[in-house]
């Protein structure tokens, strides 16, 4: 209380004159005496014990809630990790699969001639193209007795026609 009284003196000096300070200090002092002379009842031991029990329960509940929240958070994180891993694996698989498909498509044309199960119509067309190509080479080498120019044009047209038929299927 002394601390407060010192405080009052300093503080009241800023707001009141010297006579009023003394009066105010007496009022505060007297009020303190009145309150000290009439102490309030103390809390029962039973009440204190009950409050302690209540606090323990509240703490326990709080810990349970914290644990539950952590579990939910961990489950959410685990779910995200699983989803991310699945997506990564799928992406990796697709990444690996695409070049194979491309290679396969390239190989298809090259191996088509050697493939036993190839479509017979495709084979016939391929043979025709080969035949025309051979004729072309022969013409260019002038194997048809100098009458090559017109025949070459005809053959080229024929080749274009066959090729377009081939790609149309």
């Amino acid at each position: 209380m002394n601390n407060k009284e010192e405080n009052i003196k300093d503080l009241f000096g800023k707001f009141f004159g010297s006579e009023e300070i003394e009066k105010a200090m007496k009022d505060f002092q007297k009020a303190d005496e009145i309150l000290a002379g009439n102490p309030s009842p103390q809390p029962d031991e039973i009440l204190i014990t009950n409050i302690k029990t209540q606090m323990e329960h509240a703490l326990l509940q709080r810990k349970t809630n914290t644990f539950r929240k952590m579990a939910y958070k961990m489950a959410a994180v685990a779910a995200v990790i699983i989803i991310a891993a699945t997506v990564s694996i799928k992406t990796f698989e697709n990444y690996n699969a695409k070049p194979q498909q491309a290679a396969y498509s390239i190989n298809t044309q090259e191996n088509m001639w050697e493939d036993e199960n190839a479509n017979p119509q495709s084979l016939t067309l391929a043979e025709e193209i080969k035949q025309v190509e051979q004729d072309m080479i022969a013409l260019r080498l002038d194997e048809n007795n100098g009458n090559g120019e017109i025949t070459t044009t005809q053959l080229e047209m024929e080749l274009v026609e066959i090729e377009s038929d081939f790609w149309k299927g």
Partner: protein
Amino acid sequence: MTENDTLVRIIAGCKSGEADSFSQLLDMYANRCYGYFYRLTGNKDVSDDLLSELFVKLIEKIKSYNGGCFQSWLFKIASNIFYDYLRKKQRQKKLLENRKEQLETETTTEKKHENEQIEKIQIQLNKLDTDTRELVMLRYYSELSFKEIAEMRGEPIGTTLSKLHRGVKKLRELMQE
């Protein structure tokens, strides 16, 4: 170890969720907080409830305590609890006004019974308005400085001083009657 060091250690324990630290805090402040509630309400049962509410609430609130005067922080919560109680009481009073006649009979009997037990100081304290009574009790039981009280109430120190002075002067006069 000083009192302040002990308090710092206890608060750290409370923040970690240690039940023992909360028990220690209760042992340290139960009397002062109970006195504050009792002098404001004049009712033992209500004071019991408010004290329980305060310390259970402390478990939720302790993490928001970021240093500074602990008493000031504690009594701010106590003050809020008291005003919440008053508002609740006021609402109940309004609800019960419809049954005025029936209640009047009951209240007269109750009041008679209560007055027989209430001390003189409690009767005189009840003559002060709620705000002044709360302020006088806050100063006495929290042992806070005027500056801390003014900061806690969010008003200029001159206003707090003047209100407090009027309050203690009135209490003094009433007790001399």
